[in-house]
Each structure stands twice: as C-alpha cells, then as structure tokens.
C-alpha cells in the first residue's frame, strides 16, 4: 500500500508524494495537531504509512514539510516552534487541523510566516474553521480540474479506515475527553500506550519492505513524538492553554495564508467528507491499521469531543481529504496537475508547498508532463523496486582565469514516478553541489537525518585547474577532476538513495531543472558566509567540548561510543589504504623504469639470445606496469575513496548526534526555566499577591508547554536518529560488501592479466634459449 502511495510521485512535479504527505498530514494534523508542524504530521503519517499501505504515503508527506522548511529556514523554525504548540492545540480543537492544512497552503502562499503572537484560544477555534473553508475551496478546484481526484479518494481510503478504527477505539477515549481535563489523562495514557505499538509496527514494516520502509522510518520516528504531545495537551488544562497559545500562534500564520483564500468552501467540504466517508467504508483499511493511526484518530476524536462537535471532527477529516485537492488546483495547473490526478487528492496540499518552493527558485516552471495516469496497481508494482541512478560526466571548464569553473553533466536514470522522465541530464557546477548539500542540511539535519556530505572544496586543486591553460595538459589536474567527478557521483547517489532526501524539492530541482541554478553564494570558503560558518563551527566545537550530556538512553551511549571507535578505525584504515595506493603507484612507476632499463640492457647485450630474452622481459614488464597502474586506481577508487566517504559520513552522523544533544540542551534549559517560574509562582502565592500569581501562572504554563515541546522534539529526534542509524548500518554493510566484491574483482582481473602476460612470455623465452 505504501508503495501505491509513493507512486503518486508519478507526478513529475514531485507533488504527488507531497500530496500524499499532505493528505496524511491533514489527517494526522487534524487529529493530532492542528498546528501544521510539517515534520510532525508527516512523521505520524509516515509511521502510519509504515504500518499500513495507506500510511505509506506519509513518507511522501515528509517531503512536503521539508520543502516548506527547506525553502525558508525561517519558516522552518517558526513552523517547528508553532508546531509544538500546535500539537497540543490540535487535539483540543479541530481548527488545528485546518491550521495544519493552512500552514501547508500558507507556506505556499506566504513563505515566511514568523511565529505569530499567540491569539486567544477562541480565535484559534474560529481560525480552524476558516481554514477548513479555504481548504474546501481548494479541494473543489482540484477535483474539478481533474478526474484524477477520484484516485485520490482511493488513496484517502486508508485514512478513512484508520479513522473508523480510531473512532471505534477512540470512543473509549472520547468519554474521558468529554469529562474534560480529569479524564484526558487516562485517554492520554491509553494513547501513549498505543504509540509504542505503532513504533513496533513501524519497525516491522521497516524490516519487511526495506525500500518502502526506508523512507518512512524517519517520518515514523518523528510521528510518535507528535502523538505524545497531543496526549500531553489533553492531560493538563494548563498545558492545553499553553499549547493553545502556541497553536494560536501557528494558526495566525495559517490565518494569514488562509485569509486570502478564505471563501465559502465548507459546503463542498462537507459533501466531499461524505463521499470520503463512504469511500472509507467501502475500502477497509488493511488489518495493519497501526496503533499510531489510531492514536492520531483518537486524538482527533478527542479534539472534536472537546469542541463538542462530532461533526467538526468529521469535517476535519473531510477537510484534510479535501484540502489536498485545493492546493492541487492552485498549484497543479502550472505544474501539470492533470498528471497528478491519481494522487491528486493527496497532492493538493503537497503541491502548494512545492509550488512555492519550486517556482521561486526555478524561473522556468517545470513543464507539466502529461504522464499516463498510473493506476494504483502500476504504482505499487513500480514502488516495489524503484531505483535511481545518477551519473556525473563530461567535466568541462567554463570561462577563464580565476572566474572559471568546472561544470558537470548530471545524468539521471530512474523509475521513480515523481520524476518527470526516466532518463535525462542537466548541467551543474561544483558549487551547485555544495549548495544542494547546504540546503539539505538546513532542512533535514534538525529532524535527525544523516545527510551524505558533499565532496570537500579544494582550493589548491581548483586554483590549479583555473590557472592551467589547457584542460587536458596536466595529468595531475585531470586526476583531480576525475577524482572529484567520482566523488560527486558517489555523493549524488548516496543522497538519492535516501528516500526522504531524494524527494526533497531542492534535490529534485537540482537534478531535474534544465537551467542554471541560482548561484550558491554561501559555499565559497572566503565569502562572508564562509567566515560565518567557520565561527559557527568553532562555537559548536566549543559547545561539544564543554557540554557533557548525561546520556539517559543506553542505545545512544553505546552508539556514540561505537561511532567514535568506527571513526578512529576508519581513519586508520584509510591511512593504510592511502599508503597502499601510493606504493602501488610506486610499484607501477618502478616497474616502468625497470622495463625501460631492461630494454636498454637488451640493446647493449651482445649475446643475441639473452638480448632477445631481455627484450621480451622488457615488454612483459611494460605490460605489467599498466596493470599495476590500473590496480592502483582500483585501490584508490574502490577502497580508499569509499573509506574516505565513510569517514565523512561518520562526520554527518556525529552532526546528527550533536543535533540531538542540542535539542536535549534546549529541553534542559526549558526545565530549569520551568522550575524557576514555578518557584516564582509559589513565592507570589505565599506573598498573597494575586495579580502576580496570575502572571506567574501564565508563565509556568508557558514554560510547561515549552518543556513538553522540547521533550517531544528530543524524543522525536532520538527516534529519528535510531531509525536513520539502523538504515545507515544496513547500507554500510551493503556498501562494504559491494566494495569488497568490486575490489576483489579488480584484484583478480589484474592477476589474470599478469598471468596472461607471463604465460605468453615463457614459451617465447624458452624458444629463444
């Protein structure tokens, strides 16, 4: 099922996946957190997806969040913060759902929503409604635009199913909710209990369909965290209030976005909801319907209960379903909406995000490819073994002097549906690669993803090439170019192998957009950004050295140690391999010089038979010389470079770990602040100053929310890292095997060649004597 959803990617625009995500997001967001934390909803959806085919789309959903975040770091941050609040708020209010969807749309519309000041709860509620309407409108256009929307419905089905399940199970929960704060705690507990199961499901899913699972894992991880947040919000009223505020803030952002679009869309939404409901019924979700989904649904249910409107809950679902179409309508027209139809329902929301991102960046709009609508079956089949293969070729020097640069041809072959073509190529320069890496790091690092590092910039090598008059004259510079080309290729393929990263809009734009990318100015070592980066790095290093986190999670403790060891071992191994390569080269050159001197010797030799034997020897050694040389290259490219890549990858892993430590720090900080505020409140109470007590109460609530949020964030990133590491380890073992096989094969070829050389030598030499 998950596959089927992924297929939606068939849309060239990438919107498909996003659409799915969006849909999921909408669902999840509606249920869990109205706040459109892009990441959290996605995560949830992903988790669900892992469990259920339906949920599978979530992986795609993860994309949408990314895009939004990726496009504008500001947005990202703002989104995150609000999102936390949003989670809590969401369960309380359906509006949150709307908000979530809105956010998506807002992102598309208004790229940088700054974290808004917290509006009152009431206002928030209203807002969600508005949002819903907006979404409805959007949905309508999309549906109208293409028949594709129907397929979307099918996609939605899984969600409905889950929702049903949720509803049934939630019932238990809902009563508590109705009881208000006291009951919520129980429900929260129940909910919390469920998440673990979901995670277990996720794990299973991960292991079973590796490819599919690979995408979801990260998202899945994130999702659990979100749920807890929702739960927590239920538990304490105070917290709820705080969360509501946060949500309000997020809602505000949403409102901005939604306001423009706000129109009467409720009716349509409702109608669509009904349709959806029917669909749900008809399509029973797979048995898998994972606990996380249930949780999400339950949260949604709860939220409605709070509101007291059962209908509202339904609406939220509908909205979510509908929402996607709306964005699709907005976005799709330019992007090639028709294509998306199958996914369309999902895509709509996703598309908004995409479009904003893509369109600004790429002046040339991606031409909508009229791809045949892939049937659900097709999608599934394709998703089963999707591959993407990127090759870098034709390095070219463009321009002269210091302003010149190297451009590379990036050729992609893929069967992944969200790419517009199966095979195409674009031209990119080196700094573009660095820029891509920068963008990916900005967007994904904080969510605990291991981002493959880009090749290092080499000032010396580049300068040499820039100043060199002829491109091919210098063998050392052509060596350098070849090395860089190979490492770029490995870098691109590593990135593409990561399901989340490869569906990132920036990545897709990078490999798809047939035009020059805007110059990445931040990559130069000498630019102001470079200096800034340097300062940041120094600061982080100091931080790493000074802050010792007392590790609560044994897994991380072990893993950190393991990573450190691995790093040291790899470095040692790399040093040995470098030496090996160097001496292999030396062997090649000395063999060549021996061949030469043997030739001289043979010309000097007077004894004709010996002279001829020497001549033969010279020729044979000359041939072995080329073999040794090839072997040195094989040593280098197969062993040394792979190992070096892994040293850099370990660096990326460390970054991710450090990111977690930073999250932990924020959490700790929030806790200490909370303690202080509580103390202040207690003092105020003792002093009997009621005016201050009220204020202190507010502050305590605020910090409680923050603690909760940062804890969630911490849990989320911890889980994400675990998933990523699991995947990382698997890939590492696979890479290791590949490396060994390739290397041994290379060794064998050279030995076989050497055997051939001497086999031809011997009879001749014996014939002479």
């Amino acid at each position: 099922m998950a596959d089927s959803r992924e297929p939606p990617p068939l849309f060239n625009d990438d919107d498909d996946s996003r659409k799915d995500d969006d849909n999921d997001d909408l669902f999840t967001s509606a249920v869990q957190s109205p706040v459109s934390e892009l990441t959290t909803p996605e995560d949830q959806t992903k988790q669900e997806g892992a469990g259920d085919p339906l949920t599978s789309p979530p992986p795609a959903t993860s994309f949408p969040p990314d895009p939004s975040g990726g496009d504008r770091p500001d947005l990202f941050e703002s989104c995150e913060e609000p999102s936390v609040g949003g989670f809590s708020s969401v369960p309380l209010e359906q509006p949150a759902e709307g908000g979530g969807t809105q956010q998506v749309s807002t992102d598309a519309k208004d790229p940088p929503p700054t974290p808004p000041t917290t509006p009152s709860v009431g206002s928030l509620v209203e807002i969600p409604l508005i949002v819903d309407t907006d979404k409805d409108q959007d949905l309508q256009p999309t549906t109208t635009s293409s028949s594709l929307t129907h397929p979307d419905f099918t996609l939605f089905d899984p969600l409905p199913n889950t929702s049903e399940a949720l509803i049934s199970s939630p019932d238990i929960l809902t009563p508590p909710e109705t009881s208000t704060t006291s009951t919520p705690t129980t429900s929260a507990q129940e909910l919390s209990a469920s998440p673990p199961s979901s995670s277990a499901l996720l794990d299973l899913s991960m292991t079973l369909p590796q490819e599919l699972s690979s995408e979801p894992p990260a998202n899945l991880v994130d999702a659990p965290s979100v749920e807890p947040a929702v739960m927590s919000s239920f538990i304490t009223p105070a917290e709820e209030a705080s969360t509501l505020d946060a949500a309000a803030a997020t809602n505000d952002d949403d409102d901005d976005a939604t306001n423009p679009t706000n129109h009467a869309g409720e009716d349509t939404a409702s109608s669509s909801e009904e349709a959806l409901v029917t669909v749900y019924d008809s399509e029973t979700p797979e048995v898998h319907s994972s606990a996380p989904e249930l949780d999400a649904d339950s949260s949604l249910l709860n939220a409605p209960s709070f509101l007291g409107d059962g209908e509202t809950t339904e609406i939220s679902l509908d909205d979510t379903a509908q929402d996607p179409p709306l964005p699709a309508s907005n976005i799709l027209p330019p992007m090639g909406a028709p294509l998306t139809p199958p996914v369309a329902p999902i895509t709509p929301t996703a598309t908004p995000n995409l479009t904003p991102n893509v369109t600004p960046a790429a002046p040339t709009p991606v031409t909508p490819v009229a791809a045949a609508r892939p049937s659900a079956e097709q999608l599934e089949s394709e998703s089963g073994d999707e591959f993407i293969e990127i090759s870098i070729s034709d390095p070219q020097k463009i321009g002269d002097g210091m302003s010149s640069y190297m451009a590379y041809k990036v050729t992609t072959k893929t069967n992944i549906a969200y790419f517009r073509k199966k095979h195409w190529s674009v031209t990119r320069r080196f700094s573009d690669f660095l820029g891509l890496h920068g963008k990916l790091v900005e967007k994904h690092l904080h969510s605990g993803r291991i981002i493959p590092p880009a090749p290092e910039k080499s000032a010396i090598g580049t300068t040499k090439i820039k100043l060199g008059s002829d491109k091919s004259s210098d063998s050392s510079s052509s060596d350098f170019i070849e090395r860089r080309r190979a490492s770029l290729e490995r870098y691109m393929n590593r990135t593409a192998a990561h399901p989340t990263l490869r569906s990132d809009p920036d990545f897709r734009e990078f490999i798809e957009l047939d035009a020059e990318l805007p110059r990445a100015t931040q990559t130069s070592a000498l630019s102001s950004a470079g200096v800034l980066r340097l300062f940041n790095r120094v600061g982080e290093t100091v931080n790493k050295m000074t802050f010792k986190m007392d590790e609560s999670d044994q897994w991380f403790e072990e893993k950190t140690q393991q990573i450190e060891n691995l790093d040291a071992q790899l470095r040692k191994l790399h040093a040995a391999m470098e030496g090996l390569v160097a001496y292999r080269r030396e062997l090649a050159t000395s063999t060549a010089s021996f061949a030469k001197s043997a030739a001289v010797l043979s010309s000097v030799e007077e004894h004709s038979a010996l002279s001829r034997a020497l001549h033969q020897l010279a020729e044979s050694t000359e041939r072995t010389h080329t073999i040794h040389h090839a072997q040195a290259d094989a040593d280098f490219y197969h062993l040394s470079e792979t190992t070096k890549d892994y040293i850099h990858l370990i660096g990326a892993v460390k970054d991710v770990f450090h990111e977690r430590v930073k999250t932990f720090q924020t959490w700790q900080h929030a806790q200490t602040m909370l303690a202080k505020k509580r103390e202040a409140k207690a003092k105020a109470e003792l002093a009997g100053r009621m005016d201050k007590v009220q204020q202190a109460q507010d502050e305590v609530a605020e910090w409680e929310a923050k603690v909760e949020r940062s804890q969630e964030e911490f849990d989320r990133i911890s889980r994400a890292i675990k998933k990523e590491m699991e995947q990382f380890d698997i890939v590492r073992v696979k890479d290791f095997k590949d490396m060994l096989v390739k290397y041994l094969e290379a060794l064998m070829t050279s030995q076989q060649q050497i055997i051939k050389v001497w086999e031809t030598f011997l009879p001749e030499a014996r014939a002479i004597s």
Partner: protein
Amino acid sequence: MLEEGSVSGMSSGASTPEPEAPFTPKFVVRLSDHVTKDGDCVKFTLQVSQNGHTVQVLEREYEDFEYLEHCVTTSQPSHGLIIPPMPQRSAIDPYNAEIQSKRLMGKGSKTLIPDEFHKDCLQLQKYLELLLSHPVLGKSQKLHDFLTVKEAPPRTKVKKGLISRLSDSLDARKASYPDCEEFFQKERDWVAKYQPAAANANDAFSKIICAQLRISHQLEQMVTALKLSSLPNDQVHYMQFNNMNMIFLDCIDTLKSQTEEKADKEDLMFGAVQTLWHRYVQAENAMLLDRTCLMVDYQACNRALDKAKPNRKEAAERAKKEAEQAFEECSDAARQEIKEFQRKRVEELQRSIDQYAAYQLTCSRATLNTLTQALSQIKAINL
C-alpha cells in the same frame, strides 16, 4: 706500431686453447642456515664436502671471507683473471640496519627490516662456489686452507692505503687508451656500455622489490585496522559485516605474506643474480684495465727500446721482453677468462629470467586462487 701488430698477431693468431677439461671444483661448500650472531660478530656455518663426503664443518665470519679474498687475489699473479666479486656486507648493527630499512621502506617507515642471514649465506656460498670453480683461483692453497682448517686463519685488517688508491686513479686514466686488439677493444666498449645499463636495471629492480615490501607492509597495517573494526555481534547485519570483514582480512593477510614472499624470492632469484653479474662485470672491467696498463707499459718499453742508445739497448731490450711477456700472458689468460665469463653470465642470466617469469606465474596463480576463494565466500553472504 709494428711491434703492436706483431703482438696482436701473436696473441690473437694463436688459437686460444679451449680449457682441456672442464675444471671441477675440489670442494663443495654449503652454508647452512645456522647463523650465530653475537653483537657485531656474525658467524656462518660452512659445511665442506668432497666427493659427497663431509670433510669439515667450520664457522667463519664475514671478515674471514674478506681476508680470504685478499689472500687469494694477492698470493699469486692474477693478471688476466676475473676475480669473482665478494658479496657486500649486509647491515648488522642497528644503526646501519635502520639506515637500510629507511632506504627500503621509505623515510617515514618505522619498521626495521630484520636480519636476513639466509641471503648472506646464499651470496657467500655463491662466492665460494665461484672461487672454487675458477680454474686458477680454485687451486689456491689459501682457499683450500680456508675450507679445511678448523681455526680461521689469523687475519689482518685489509686496508687500501693512500698509495694504492692513488695508483688506482692513475691507472684509471689509462682506460681510454685504444686497445691494440679488436677483441679486447670490443669487450672494453661493451663493458663501458653495459655497466651503466646494468646499474640502472639493478636500481630499478630493487625499487620494485622495495615497492612490494612497502605494499606488503601497508597490507599488514590494513589487516590490523580491519581487525579493529569488528562490530558487536548482536545484529544480523553486524554479523554479516563481521563475517565479510574476517574473510577480507584473511584474504589481505594472505596477500600480504604472498607479496612479502614474492618480493623476497624475486630479490634472490633475479635481483641477486643481476647484482652479482653486474659486479662481476665490474671485476672484468678491472681486469681489462689491468691488462690495458700492461699494454701501456709494453708500448712504453717498445718506444724506449727504439730510442735507446746503444749502451742502454740491452736493458731496454730486457725490459721490453719482460713487459711483452707479462702482457702476452695476461692477454692469453684474459681471453680465456672472458670467454668463460661470458658463457657463464649468459647462462645464469637467462636462467634467472626464466625462473623469474615462471615465478611470476606461480605467484599470480596463487594470488588469484586466494582472491577467488575470498570473493566466492563474500558473495555467498546474502545481505
């Protein structure tokens, strides 16, 4: 000039008698691997046998060999003889060993090449064989004593004085004198061309050996690094990783010892032979130079005789006769020596080339075998 012509006519015209019967060495010497090292003093054990029976087992030091060489070359007129070259002393003390190791393994290398006495043994054995099989030197009483008397003869430090060096350098200037005989002139030209070429080839070959040794050293480091990189056995893919790691590690380890052995054997089989004959050619060159000196002397005497006043004629005549005789003897011996020398040289070099190629084949096949096994094992692991 006439004299010269007559001389050449005489010496070249006389058909140089082939050695009547191939000279059979009186003793067969084998240096056993038993080598005792006590500080700077390394004692080699020689097993001397005659007609298949062990006659004597002795211990000799490198210095004894040096003294032997001195005695053998000085105790009898050695004009026209190509003296087998004495193997070079290998580094025994830590200081020299370190220098040599650095030369072989690269400046940054921290490894010391251990003493390789088996190489010394083989080279010394070869030296003795060459001495014993030499038709003239093989009959030397000093050599026989060296091989039969239990106690090593008391030796004196052999030192080249300033005077002898000066005369050597004076003699060297005579190397450019044109030879009166075409055979020797050709031989001299050949040696002049051959020597640098052989030196180059030697250097290049020893570099190949070095590179192989260094590769094997790096492979060893890789093995240690790989050994460290095993993961806890608690997960399936970790176990797979460890398995592959082990296979690869073993494979690299085998490759390492193969490379090391190959370098070692190649060095003995080809490098040592090259070096020996390179130095042998140097010895030939020395002999030719010696002969040229005699020739120059002889020519000088001829001129002196021409110019000599009647009262001195007799002395000049005598001097000329002596010089002529010495030169003639030398030339005759040299002709024999050179022919024998070239025959041996060609034979041994050809054999070494042949062996070298055959050994390359066996090595590559063995390596290929190791690789094939490792590869199939790794491929058998399903991820």
